[in-house]
């Protein structure tokens, strides 16, 4: 009996909705090839959190998968200086957030594993085993035992550099192939690096140390000479044996066994003049002698100090585009510096950090995918952009700064400094500047941004290990790839100018994808909606405040020190996911010198922050958007050292409205007058707005041209917050403001809006459609946070 109304119908409802749309002319760019080359066979290593098959749970948290030839790979962990595994027949898979995009996994070895060493230090002190004395099983091990210095890239060779005790060790992982299969080699050179051939000169070891070589559980071990080489032969059940052999070991350097572990002892007083090596092989017992034959080859070390050949001699030459968007007043335009998305190496390009060299003609940009690109041709016309590759294999760099024309990046493994030894335009030495930041297996433990103050200190931030799906932190039970909460999760760090001192400056962040540092060291951060973050905040870091995100390592008493941000921004229309912030240091960029700009990753937008001092270091702020369009998200910004214009770079991975995966734009001040708000102050009767221009009195004083809303958020463990009524938090949505009057100030440029029932509120928006005195329309919207109403007794707030 239900009416079915099966009457034949015309196609009314399928009507295409007409709209007067402009069609942009198609750009010259062709649709890109479908597959990126996430792993490179023409570059020796990839850094990431990487797992091996054995011993169980063998994961190099700051791992380097290193190609050693013969289709063999070793895995080195720079936190523990441990050669964690070696395998043949492959490299690593592409699981993980910067590879296939997976949330909750990291790359795993691909091939047949030949040896492995479980989690823990790979360098020890004789008699003390390989004890892990770290308070948490993350971050670098005791630096007096061993410490990571960095690596040299020389063609397809990788030379690892670390200290062991007081001795500098250079180690070249390699492989040898013969009838017995593939054997892994570890060639060592002791002493400080010196240019010229592989000779060392003469180095005397002062403090003895040990280097872990292999773990072979449940095996008998035979110690002695094999065909003249000192060797350890582990044989367990079955036919397979593991052979560890020494070649050209100096006097006092010995192969040792401790239970199932094979290690190298380097005694004090050892005088090393030539490289020596250890060969590790695993295979059928019948091939043992073949393995020893392989091991007999004399150790050799390339002259890595001279700098290796170029990996990427080609360049990508592009033209930029000028004035891709313009503010309505014509004062600012965007110019697009075309990114080398289409490149001969099929590398994915997603910019996560950017800075200029001192000449201003070139910029360096790092990609989340692990590369550093250098672009030249940054000039007025952008007609000759030349992109070249500088470095690769990095562990998710999302920050880059150039100091004295030397590039520094921040990544999951800390701050790396790059040295181009032979000045051929590619980095040869990837130097560990500071690796104190801890890293667990979490896919979401991003290390964000890299900024400096005038004193030369470095600043960066680290996310909490957000679980796959977005809620909560470090649920290792749900997925190992969620990681665990370490005491650096959700912190902001400062590193001294020399890289030696690392300290936690502030706590309580979730995913602060971008910070801002003023010359005097004043730090701001954004954060990303989620657990404990109701919506996007702008945090003012004073070294005392706790910024709100509580995890299992939050020190007792901290949550009580929670200080709200100076400003919230609504995730639905202003910012759902932040980028960095930048202070306007340029005098060539219009009327906003010394003001703070806020970048939005999620809304691909740039905002002016208008702060109001409340005394005692407290502030509240409002934001207004620069109505410009960007190529991708807006995530990292710098003022150009010469032209004084603002440059922004960004990427898009998820929850951003950026359509392109990356972009690099210039926000250029054209010199035309700026029409808009430039200061917002809460006053007892309402809000006072100050404009860059004299206003038309009639339009400014007509309340019809002003409107506003307000709402609160609920800060909780839940993912983000709904917008709720100020008068009743049970109701969702925004309440309209009762604007009862608008009065133009004597200066002709400011308006006091009278707001009935003005009160402190998490978020208040104001919108206007007025005219300047010369008739130019001014149509803008701000969002602000009102912590208090100055001039009103606190009890009335």
């Amino acid at each position, binding site marked *: 009996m239900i009416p079915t109304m099966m009457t034949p119908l015309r196609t009314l409802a399928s009507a295409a909705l007409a709209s007067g749309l402009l069609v942009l002319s198609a750009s010259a*760019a062709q649709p890109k090839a479908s597959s990126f080359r996430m792993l490179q066979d023409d570059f020796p290593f990839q850094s990431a959190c990487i797992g091996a098959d054995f011993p169980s749970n063998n994961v190099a948290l700051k791992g380097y998968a290193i190609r050693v030839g013969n289709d063999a790979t070793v895995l080195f962990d720079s936190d523990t200086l441990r050669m964690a595994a070696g395998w043949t027949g492959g490299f690593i898979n592409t699981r993980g957030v910067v590879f296939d995009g997976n949330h909750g996994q990291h790359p795993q070895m691909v091939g047949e594993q030949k040896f492995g060493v479980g989690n823990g230090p790979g360098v020890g002190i004789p008699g003390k085993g390989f004890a892990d004395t770290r308070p948490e099983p993350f971050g670098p091990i005791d630096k007096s035992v061993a410490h990571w210095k960095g690596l040299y890239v020389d063609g397809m060779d990788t030379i690892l550099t670390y200290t062991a005790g007081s001795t500098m060790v250079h180690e070249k992982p390699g492989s040898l192939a013969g009838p017995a299969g593939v054997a892994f080699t570890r060639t060592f050179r002791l002493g400080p690096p010196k240019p010229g051939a592989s000779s060392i000169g003469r180095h005397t070891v002062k403090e003895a140390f040990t280097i872990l070589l292999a773990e072979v559980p449940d095996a008998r071990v035979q110690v002695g000479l094999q065909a003249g080489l000192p060797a350890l032969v582990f044989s367990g059940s079955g036919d397979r044996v593991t052979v560890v052999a020494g070649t050209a070991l100096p006097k006092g350097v010995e192969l040792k066994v401790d239970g199932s572990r094979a290690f190298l002892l380097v005694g004090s007083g050892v005088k090393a003049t030539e490289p020596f090596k250890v060969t590790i092989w695993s295979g059928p017992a019948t091939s043992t002698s073949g393995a020893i034959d392989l091991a007999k080859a004399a150790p050799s070390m390339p002259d890595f100090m001279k700098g290796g050949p170029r990996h990427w001699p080609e360049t990508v030459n592009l033209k930029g585009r000028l004035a891709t968007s313009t503010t309505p007043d014509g004062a600012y335009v965007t110019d697009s510096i075309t990114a080398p998305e289409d490149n001969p190496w099929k590398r994915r390009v997603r910019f996560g950090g950017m800075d200029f060299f001192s000449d201003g003609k070139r910029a360096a940009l790092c990609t989340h995918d692990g590369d550093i690109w250098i672009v030249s041709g940054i000039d007025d016309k952008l007609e000759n952009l030349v992109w070249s590759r500088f470095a690769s294999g990095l562990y998710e760099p999302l920050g880059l700064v150039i100091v004295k024309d030397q590039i520094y990046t921040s990544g999951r493994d800390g701050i790396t400094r790059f040295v181009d030894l032979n000045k051929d335009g590619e980095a040869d030495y990837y130097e560990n500047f500071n690796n104190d930041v801890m890293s667990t297996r979490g896919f979401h433990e991003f290390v964000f941004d890299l900024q400096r103050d005038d004193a030369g200190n470095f600043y960066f931030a680290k996310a909490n290990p957000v679980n796959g799906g*977005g809620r909560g932190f470090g649920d290792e039970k749900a997925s190992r790839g969620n990681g665990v909460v370490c005491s650096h999760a959700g912190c902001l760090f400062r590193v001294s100018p020399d890289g030696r001192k690392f300290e936690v400056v502030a706590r309580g962040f979730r995913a602060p994808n971008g910070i801002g540092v003023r010359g005097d060291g004043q730090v701001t951060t954004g954060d990303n909606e989620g657990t404990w973050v109701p919506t996007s905040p702008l945090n003012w870091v004073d070294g005392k405040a706790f910024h709100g995100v509580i995890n299992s390592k939050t020190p007792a008493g901290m949550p009580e020190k929670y200080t709200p941000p100076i400003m919230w921004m609504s995730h*639905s229309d202003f910012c759902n996911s932040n980028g960095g912030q930048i202070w306007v240091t340029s005098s060539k960029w219009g009327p906003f010198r010394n003001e703070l700009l806020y970048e939005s990753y999620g809304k691909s937008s740039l905002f002016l922050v208008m702060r109001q001092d409340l005394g005692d270091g407290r502030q509240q702020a409002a934001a207004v958007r620069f109505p410009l369009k960007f190529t991708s998200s807006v995530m990292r910004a710098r003022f150009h050292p010469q032209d004084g214009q603002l440059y922004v770079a960004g990427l898009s991975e998820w929850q951003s409205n950026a359509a392109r995966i990356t972009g690099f734009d210039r926000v250029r001040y054209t010199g035309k007058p700026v029409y808009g708000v430039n200061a917002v102050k809460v006053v007892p009767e309402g809000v006072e707005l100050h404009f860059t221009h004299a206003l038309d009195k009639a339009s400014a004083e007509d309340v019809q041209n002003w409107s506003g809303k307000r709402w609160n958020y609920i800060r909780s463990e839940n993912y983000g917050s709904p917008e709720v009524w100020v008068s009743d938090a049970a109701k969702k949505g925004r309440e309209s403001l009762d604007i009862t009057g608008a009065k133009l100030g004597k200066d002709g440029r400011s308006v006091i809006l009278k707001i009935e029932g003005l009160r402190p509120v998490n978020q208040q928006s104001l919108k206007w459609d007025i005219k300047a005195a010369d008739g130019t329309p001014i149509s803008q919207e701000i969002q602000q946070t009102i912590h208090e109403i100055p001039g009103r007794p606190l009890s009335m707030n």
Partner: protein
Amino acid sequence: MNTPLRSLGSLVSRVLLGNRWHLEGLAVGMVVWGMLAQGLGAAEQSMGLVRTITAGGVTDVSVTPNVWLFVPTGQPPTPFVPAGPFTARWEGSISADLRGDFTFQALAQGSLKVSVNGATALEAKDTGPTLAIGQSVRLNKGSNSFRVEFTAPAMGEAMVRLFWTNRETPLSTLPLAQLSHEPTEALRRSTSMHEGRDLLLEFRCARCHEAPGKVPELSMDAPSFKGIGSRRQVAWMAAWIQDPQAHRPGTPMPAMLSGDTAAADAASMAAYLGSLKGEEPSAGQTGNLETGKALFEKLHCVACHPTPGSTELKPHQVSQKAVNAKFTPGALAAFLQKPEQHFRWIRMPNFKLTAAEAADLAAYLGSAADPAPAVDAGKPDPAKVEQGRKLVAATGCLNCHALDGVKNEFTAKPLAQLASTSWTSGCLAEKPSAGSKAPRYTLTAPQRAALQAFGASDRSSLDRSTAADFLERQSVHLNCRECHGQFEGFPAWDHLVGKLKPEWAARFIRGEVAVKPRSWGEYRMPAFPAYAQGLGEGLSTLAGLPPVTAPDPAPADTATLAEAGRKLAGANGGFGCVSCHSIGEFGATQVFEAPGINLATSFDRLQPDYFRRWLRAPTTIDPASKMPVYFDEEGRSPLPEILGGDGPKTIQAVWEYLRLKEAMAKPE
């Protein structure tokens, strides 16, 4: 609490708000009862517009959520006027945040005139599928008088769908929150009469007072008596028959017995019903109380039932504290698994519970309910059973409750013979006279007034039905908004109107869609099989869309567009839809708090018009959506290398890709 609150609630909602429309996040109940406290005369500005329809010299006034209308050929625009040429007028206020210039646009079959503050904003006639675009009009901040006049075509279907746009709002339907009206006396009279019709249907008056008609609910059943003795306990049935209102305030079941013999008669009738054995519920498995409690929460049972153990009972909630007394052992679990098995029009929906889940829920409900009284295991007195049989046949039970083999001996005058002047006695008597055989409904004064208003009408509306009318009525009775718009993750009710294709909506509400759209939610959309077709169609026609999805032929270049759509869906040079949305068997790659619906289901689910507006500006439709807005203010795509960045073409390309459904190729 003997007042039938539920019905009163919906009455007040119609009389005062004039409709069932509300702001998201603002519970309907709160408004209704808040206003009730102020008295009937205290109505202020209410949401929606007053719509006046005139046809064949008859005028109907009601409140509608928008300027939407769809009238298939030969159908009436509302049940309260005859089919044929008609005019419609919408009146009220439209508000703007800020003084600004707006453009109204419309699709119309018929002629349409939109006026704002007395100035003509749009005139359109028989637009076909091309939007008519009006001239820019200035809206003041706050209220603006708003009037839309429409004349249906002399023949064929009639339709109106009105949109607006301004500098910052892409083309969208008029937001309900910005439409308001002042209730008029004509509206009050009309809505009271409408409510009387609703009550007549709800109380199944026509089951005794025969009234032929086309309204679906005229055939609404009641729990079947077949085998009821295996499902309900005798003592509970006796108590229920004697005074249903005491057990469930607001139940449409009247008290049929009165006087000194009522208790004994009820006992006899219950004894007889108890003797009607059918399939015995299996003792089944013993449920887990804790699991049941978790299930009660997950399924949001609280939308319609109080939390077991709680003494608070909201007007729209049905208490479950008598389940032990009411159901025979095992019968509750069986009922929960298939509530409609013996009562087709039951409001309790089917959650497709497994036997284990039903047992768990039953265990939980039983644990918090009053203990069951001792069951008299003795064989019932045959004389009493026979007496009960006679009473059941004679008292009118069988007018609503089905039972084979017993002749119904209760008669009442057909509705047509009940003059409106008599609608103050019998069932409608303010105080039933002693000895009256009339059912006792404990109607409130406004309910009686509403029924009397309907009685005074020509009652021809029973012979006419529209899907929109059915939807508006039943969405209140079924508490749709108690979940939609209330609980996290549920699409808000107001967003559903005009969103779903009617065929898919009907299948979904009927419980026939195997793929759960919001697969990540712990809640489940339950099935309302008897209501599904009408609700599905109503979700379209109320929005001015046809009850059968209009043909949407693939364009000649569909393959090229679909390939562009595939690129657009990918993360490599596209919008990255795959970050949050699965596509068929390809899982979403980077879901973060905001999983999206599997795109392989979208073509079947979504109205093309809704899809276009959604992709263009999702937060204009749902401000809380995490779906990014990709298109700029002018509607251009930010990807100029795909289809030249043409906004509508880009959106069409995604639609053509969606058209492939399960055959959608993997995006990049």
